[in-house]
């Protein structure tokens, strides 16, 4: 059974990139265009992992994490944050909010897949 990943990013280029990279690696990828849509998608079905951007309209990445961690179902799902910044403050904040890990944009396909594999243990 393939590992399902929900990718949330308001940039369609990044969405496509994530979707292709993970798709090629055998993940089953669903995308959402902003935080709100992402949370709605998350509530709609069970995902094995979430990859989310931070800076987004209609609920940012932190909001997404809070919504998922504070939700009723699957709230311990691995959530990876896609970010262009890699300062310790941001990481600390992401961790506090409940992120499982982070990926610094721009990412290398292999490295990205490795990280997703590591937190999901699959695909």
């Amino acid at each position, binding site marked *: 059974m393939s590992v399902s990943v929900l990718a949330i990013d*308001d940039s369609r280029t990044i969405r496509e990139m994530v979707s292709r990279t993970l798709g090629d690696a055998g993940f089953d990828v669903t995308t959402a265009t902003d935080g709100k849509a992402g949370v709605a998608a998350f509530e709609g079905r069970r995902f094995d992992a979430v990859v989310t951007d931070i800076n987004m*309209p*209609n609920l940012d990445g932190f909001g997404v994490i809070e919504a998922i961690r504070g939700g009723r179902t699957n709230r311990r799902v691995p959530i990876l944050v896609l970010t262009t910044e890699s300062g*310790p*403050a941001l990481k600390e904040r992401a961790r506090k909010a409940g992120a499982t*890990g982070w*990926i*610094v944009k721009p990412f290398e396909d292999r490295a990205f897949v490795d990280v997703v594999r590591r937190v999901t243990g699959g695909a």
Partner: protein
Amino acid sequence: MSDSLRDMFFAECEDLLEALSEGLAAMSDGTHDAETVNAIFRAVHSIKGAAGAFALEDIVSFAHQYETVLDLIRSGQLDPDAEVMRAILRSSDVLADLVDAAQNDRTDRPDAMAPLLEQLTRLADAAPAPIATQPPEPEAVFAPMAAMPLTLAPIVGAESRFRIRFRPERALFDNGHDPLRLLRALSALGELTVDCDLSAIPPLGSFDPEESFLAWDMTLTGDIAEGEIRGVFSFVDGLCTLSVEREDDEAPQSTVPNSPLPQPAATPPGEAETPLVNADPPPDPGGERQPVRAGGAAAANAGPARPTLRVDPERVDRLINTVGELIINQAVIGQKIAALGAEPNSEVMSDLDDYRHLARDIQEGVMAIRAQPVKPLFQRMGRIIREAAEAVGKEVVLETEGEMTEVDKTVVERLADPLTHMVRNAVDHGIEPAALRTERGKPAEGTVRLIAAHRSGHVHIAIADDGGGLDRERILGKAVEKGLVSPEAKLTESEIDNLLFLPGFSTASSITNLSGRGVGMDVVKTAITSLGGRVSISSRPGHGSTFSITLPLTLAVLDGMVVTVGDQTMVLPLYSILETIRPQARNVTPLGRGGHVLSIRGAYVPIVSLAHVLGLASEPFDPTRSIFVLIRADGSQPVALAVEAISDQRQVVIKSLEGNYGRIPGISAATILGDGKIALIVDTDTVVAIAAQTPAVQTIRDKEPDHEQLAALG
């Protein structure tokens, strides 16, 4: 990176840049609300994020500094005063330039980039809070540490043995981690023995299933560096107690318990921790936000964005093609029914009329899909005006009207250059210096207006300035001096104004670095006629000048004149035709070897036989049996194209030949006529150019021994 992703990136950039300039326009109008500023920030941020993936360093580093300043405005640490507004407006221009350069694989940097970067840095530094002003983090080009354990050079060939104690806290589970996966990752590094410590598990009754009670003691043996082990745990920093000790030899022991603070020792160079960066976005300013579509309108007054549909342009083109067929099919049926003797007001004819109207409606609807508002084009002009005004030290504002007027996408694209030239001209030559304006009782600030409107199946675009108007005396003087007009000629004011469009005419007596680039208004005219449009100018001394452009709504349909050439039916584009002439024998005069000229109202025009130029003639050219179509091609003198007959004028659907065949000199495309036959559309510019080349004339002569009778050129 694949091309389709790249294309997608640039298409997205286009949207983001548009959202950026819309947001900035709203800000310039005094809208400083959180969502407007946020949308601006996000546009720049998104460009930066995706640009990084394509290693577009210039964009990344510029966007980074730009974003830093925007972030300060967003968080209220920087007041968007006039200077700041100016800087962020100019920055959007530079960013657009950088994107454009990247798209065209150019590496040149806009001149304004370096000074703006400096200014942005200064603005960021001047803000009250401590701000990061270093160039984009070097780690931006590296993948995250956890994924690249090999960035730390392992001690080659040396077997090490580590004792690892790992006790997850509850937060580790809450954050979506699974200790088993961590252990699995460790076992991938070397030989792992695991001992699970169950001592902390409480009696069943008080067991909280979500609490963490387990701890693991492990030994890991292999050719491993400590950093690799820490790498495995990088995401759980602060969510567990971790100790990693090297058991063997004299190696320094590492027993630092994990703390929430990052440990430099565990950080490979790729993720070198930087000093505190002001990277945290401020908390979401209130949950109530307007929905904003990706890259879409963000201006506060734009209201909720309408949902849009992205469609592959090729699909639309196919649809347009098919609808073109429908129109032709309707014409064919019409002809056939008429041929069967149906009365003009019979029932079938009126049904056919309905059919025609429906087909036209569908055609218009389909064309509308390709249509785009001129707004982004006008916004670009705003920027051209800012740059031009700055370069010549004038105060000029842009006013737009009808910017939602829609035009075919290709037309919008191809209008950019001529419009740029005209607005630059307006700023450079039209608008007077502030002192002179004040003297003339006008506001010191000049105005350039861009107006777009639909009128009778065409698009009208006007570029008007409130400057000094054209100096007719000087224009006429120059035209006479250049031999473009005879000194005795009596010209109307409008004729004088339109002398500007003559090839080689340039009004600037001093070359400025703006419009004096050796490009005249004739180039503008050529660009617009090549779109099937027309351009004219009107002017009132002391009050300004207006350039008026009329364009067809679409490029898929051409207004053409159907003619017969060497037994073939062909179409001449109407925009190149000046007039048609049925000559009297005395008006055709032989000239030179095989050449003829046509005299029209005292002027002599070279005659070109279209059939001979295209190699379709089987007989020698007989100018006395021809009809002449006077065309104006590509800035050259008028030429009389000889054809056998003229049938009518009509709109034709353009069919490209290049897909299935290739280019044909002298032919731009084909169309299908009402009878289902194919007619070629003549590329008049090339025909004139071919005819003007001696070898081509030679070829024609070689084919026809009786070359004395052949068409040639003056």
